């Protein structure tokens, strides 16, 4: 047992005790936020309260959250450019997997679409749909399917940007009548949210795929990792 472990143990114990105390002594809130959400639902443009919170009441959080996702991609891109990878030789190249993929892929896309559309009245939404899209991308990579459009940096980046740009654009556009940022007019709220979700799904999916693809594929010998000129997009 190192000193560090002992310290960690004591800290952990202390935190658990303190938290336990806090949970035990917790006062009941007087504010009833769920009620407020329920009251405001008719104006939100969607029927599913969580989607309403995520994309209407607290859509600003979501906006920043997409920025966090993009940030991870930016760092990955930056580091790849700073330490170029060797030409990629990825995938298992298994014919069976390829065959399965050919069937699986459309199915996954359908599921993603359903999740997205369902989000407005039942569980589901952009994040879940985006994650499913990403799963498809990961499978493609594992199957070694070369997808030209996934390697086309310009297109890829445009796809990454689309969601946040649309979100921002709509948020600013709705201000024209003189209302604050992100105030969707009640009659168009549903459509606008769907549009945002659609683009977000695509962007989130692409973001997650990029995060997976942008990590270095090989553990090179550092002495060998000489700077290679990568063709600029």
């Amino acid at each position: 047992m190192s000193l560090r472990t002992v310290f960690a143990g004591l800290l952990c114990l202390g935190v658990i005790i303190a938290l336990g105390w806090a949970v035990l002594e917790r006062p009941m809130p007087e504010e009833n936020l769920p009620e407020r959400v329920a009251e405001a639902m008719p104006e939100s443009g969607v029927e599913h309260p969580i989607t309403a919170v995520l994309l209407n009441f607290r859509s600003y959080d979501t906006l920043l959250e997409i920025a966090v996702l993009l940030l991870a991609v930016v760092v990955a891109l930056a580091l790849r450019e700073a330490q170029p990878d060797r030409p990629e030789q990825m995938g298992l190249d298994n014919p069976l997997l390829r065959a399965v993929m050919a069937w699986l892929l459309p199915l996954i896309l359908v599921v993603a679409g359903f999740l997205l559309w369902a989000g407005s009245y039942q569980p589901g939404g952009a994040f879940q749909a985006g994650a499913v899209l990403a799963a498809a991308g990961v499978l493609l990579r594992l199957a070694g399917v070369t997808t030209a459009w996934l390697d086309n940096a310009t297109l890829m980046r445009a796809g990454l940007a689309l969601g946040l740009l649309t979100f921002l654009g709509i948020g600013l556009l709705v201000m024209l009548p003189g209302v604050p940022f992100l105030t969707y007019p009640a009659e168009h709220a549903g459509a606008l949210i769907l549009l945002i979700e659609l683009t977000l799904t695509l962007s989130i999916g692409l973001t997650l795929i990029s995060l997976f693809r942008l990590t270095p594929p090989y553990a090179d010998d550092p002495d060998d990792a000489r700077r290679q000129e990568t063709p600029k997009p």
Partner: protein
Amino acid sequence: MPWLDLLLGFTLCVTAGLALIARDMFRAVIMFIVFGLLMAVAWVRLQAPDIALAEAAIGAGLTGVLLLDTLGYLRRPFGSRVDNPDDQT
């Protein structure tokens, strides 16, 4: 008493503990993925199916895949050097 929830909570803690103390890194990641899936069940019990979906897809699925992929990266031969053994603390 909500026995089912208690059991689930207990299992969650055990899997988390296993993920943290597993000697083998691979096993740790697998335990983590199991933990993520159990979390999804917990979210269902908390009547939060949206989170359950997100947790399964992103928390367990994507994070797990990323971790596994990185693990594979570590296991590939590292030039002429010997791979760092996982240090155990």
